[in-house]
């Protein structure tokens, strides 16, 4: 992907045509159109690690070089999460995971990194990304505690499920055009534990966060007056999507439950046939055979249930959490708009401090436009990713089910075959 690199610093007051209203179209064209300006990767401009309410940067420059997730050739960063280990200290016991990164990106000092991270560190990263990009969609993290089912944090299955989810989380971040170039992300992947701890402390102060929260709450209370139609539609979609995906999650969990109960009963069938075979002479062999077949089918059923639990349910669950993320993103966008509307009103009514207020208003307007555009393009992106994820999850499930039935089919066909061979052997039938 080539293009002229232009150092483009746009002042915040400049609401010129350089700010496209819908960036998504541009993103798609970037591949083909060499004339299109590619904004610099000046990290001071795009550093999302410091929350700056008065955004000096233009919306467009926030969205720096894109790597298209669909284009595998351009994937230049590979992240894996594995090797959970438990750590015991005087105060607590916790699990850390190994995070390995392989990359060719020039902003990384090396091409390979290996660090250990705990769940808290992932939470921190997610928080930072959300703070820096309130209207971008961050993939959800696995929940803190599992509500249903497993209780122990240190249960093997729980740890494995969490590990997989953390792996997916990091990969989704790495695939995201904006998040993957976040400084926090880079530090997360590369810093030694001590470095990370000190970097965490550097974040915006508690007070400044408090200030923003208060502002946000105030904005929420005010409510938004003129929400653009497309965001209302988005909200309606998210509501419906949330319901549907929750239902699917529940249905799938129910299926797993029923399958497990079926399995419990089926496990008793084989031994009963085996018991019967002990009283019989001629029938002993076919009965033992049937017992064996039933037992093999049991094993296949067990595996199928495990697959459903390990593959489909986590994905559905993540998208349930996604729906919540989307709702939060829409709320934050609304708040930004409410803030802008409030400032507009204030300017109209108040007489004092008009210059500062106009300044504030301009910044609020910028912020709003930036937020809206960011959301719109990320929304399109998210929908594509969602579609891919869910499609492949369901295709995968269907394939596994086919494979399950094929295996059971083979078991019973072999039984039939053996009975036929027996009959031939006994000279009762000539199959030629």
């Amino acid at each position: 992907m080539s293009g002229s690199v232009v150092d483009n610093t746009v002042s915040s007051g400049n609401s010129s045509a350089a700010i496209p209203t819908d960036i998504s179209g541009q993103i798609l064209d970037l591949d083909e159109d060499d004339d299109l300006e590619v904004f610099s990767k000046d990290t001071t401009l795009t550093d999302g690690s410091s929350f700056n309410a008065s955004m000096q940067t233009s919306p467009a420059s926030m969205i720096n070089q894109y790597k298209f997730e669909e284009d595998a050739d351009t994937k230049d960063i590979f992240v894996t999460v594995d090797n959970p280990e438990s750590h015991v200290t005087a105060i607590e016991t916790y699990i850390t995971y190994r995070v390995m990164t392989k990359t060719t990106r020039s902003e990384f000092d090396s091409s390979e990194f290996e660090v250990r991270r705990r769940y808290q560190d992932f939470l921190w990263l997610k928080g930072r990304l959300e703070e820096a990009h309130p209207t971008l969609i961050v993939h959800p993290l696995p929940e803190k505690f599992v509500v249903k089912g497993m209780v122990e944090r240190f249960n093997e299955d729980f740890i494995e499920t969490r590990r997989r989810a953390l792996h997916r989380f990091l990969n989704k971040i790495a695939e995201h055009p904006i998040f993957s170039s976040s400084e926090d992300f880079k530090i997360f992947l590369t810093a030694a534990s001590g470095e990370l701890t000190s970097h965490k402390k550097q974040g915006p102060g508690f007070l400044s966060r408090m200030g923003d929260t208060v502002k946000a709450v105030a904005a929420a209370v005010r409510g938004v007056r003129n929400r653009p139609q497309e965001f209302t539609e988005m909200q309606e979609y998210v509501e419906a999507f949330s319901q549907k995906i929750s239902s699917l999650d529940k249905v799938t969990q129910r299926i797993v439950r029923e399958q497990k109960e079926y399995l419990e009963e089926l496990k008793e069938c084989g031994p009963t046939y085996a018991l019967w075979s002990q009283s019989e002479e001629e029938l002993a062999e076919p009965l033992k055979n049937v017992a064996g077949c039933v037992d093999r089918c049991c094993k296949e059923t067990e595996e199928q249930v495990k697959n459903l639990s390990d593959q489909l349910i986590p994905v559905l669950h993540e998208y349930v959490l996604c729906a919540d993320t989307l709702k939060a993103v829409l709320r934050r966008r609304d708040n930004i708009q409410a803030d802008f509307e409030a400032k507009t009103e204030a300017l109209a009514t108040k007489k004092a401090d008009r210059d500062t207020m106009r300044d504030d208003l301009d910044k609020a307007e910028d912020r709003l436009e930036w937020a809206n555009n960011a959301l719109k393009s990320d929304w399109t992106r998210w929908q594509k990713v969602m579609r891919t994820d869910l499609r492949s999850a369901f295709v995968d499930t269907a394939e596994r089910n086919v494979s399950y039935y094929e295996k059971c089919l083979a078991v019973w066909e072999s039984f039939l075959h053996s009975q036929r061979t027996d009959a031939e052997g006994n000279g009762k039938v000539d199959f030629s």
Partner: protein
Amino acid sequence: MSRTREVTLCSLYSLPVVFVGIKPPELKKTISPFALNFQLGNFADICIEYCDSVDQNLQMVEKGTSLLKKMEISVAEAEKRTGKNAVNMQETYTVYLIETRPVDAASEGTNPVPDSLWRRYSEFEQLRNYLLVTYPFLVVPPLPEKRAEFVWHKLSADNMDPDFVERRRVGLENFLLRVASHPDLSTDKIFYSFLTEENGWKETVFETGFQAKADSRLKALNATFRVKNPDKRFAEMKHYGDELQSVISQLLRVRARAADRLYGVYKVHGNYGRVFSEWSAIEKEMGDGLQSAGHHMDAYAASVDDILEEEEHYADQLKEYLFYADALRAVCRKHELTQYELEMAAQDLTSKKQQREELATGTIRTFSLKGMTSKLFGQETPEQREAKLKMLETQIEEGEELVKERNGECEEFVKSAWVDIERFKEQKDHDLREALISYAIMQISMCKKGIQVWNNAKECFSKM
């Protein structure tokens, strides 16, 4: 319900193999537990299809009872009736239509109207009770269950439920065919008139006095007594009957519970159908794929009904042998009774002989009250002794006759019963083996349906 003619095919053990097509679902309704059916799929090898009730007759004919050589028997229909019962109360009951048709007519191509008559389940019971007392040395085929047992939640335990009635109709037909194919039972006159005489059969069977015999038989079978020298084979058979009954009961219970669970698994998938459909309404590009996938999920959920219905036939086959085990035990019990009566007679004879000896020689070897009293109160007169001796002699003679008779009975019983038990063993091995094969075929069919549905669903999902 019309009687359907199904394609005739071979038995694993006798005739050559023939290919047939897949049976349409409605035909399966006439399958009796005696017959086995399965669908032909894309089996690489030869698949064998087992016969229906028509071919069942053919099979029986192979076995050569003269009754079946000349007539076709079937229980074609079931109907509800209401009437006044013995205590003058309104009751609803079901009657079954027994149809008989001469064999030649069918093969000649003409199709005359069959002879037919209606019978209730209680009349079948009377017939069977009659056969039980008349042929205690035979393993008499069982009736289908009086009340639905081993039900799982969707199955009704109600005797009036149409599915139960249908399965009972099939079971009753099976019973008649079993009796008709038995070398001895098929020649019974009462059985013949059961099939052919609508009116007056009840009176005829009552006149045989079987009811009284049935009651005393029941009492005897339930009595406890100890046999000194039971025939080892019968003791083993009785033990086998116990084991068979226990293991088949267990299997039926486990199977019913598993069926219940499987039903749940399939039906929950129906919810996928509903949710996919609702979800497709809010999606643009994914909508079509989701919608069609949803339809396949509905089809998957619906498919379990047929699957479990077929499995009920398998359960019915097992149930028949569950009840057969009871009949087998009854024969063994009867042997014990006969043996016991022989032993009692022999014991009695021995004691009488001993008494005679004592009387003749004047020695008292056995303690008897008479002996003691005579010791205490003086010996008897020679005339008294003479009279006693004479009486004993007569008794001994009678006793020897009795022992000879009972011995003969015992030997007869053992001989004929063992022949029938051997016949039963062969039948059981054959039938149950085929039942297992049909079970395997059902599982295969279920797997094939599953493969098809999920492949279809996969295609739809990939269009999402």
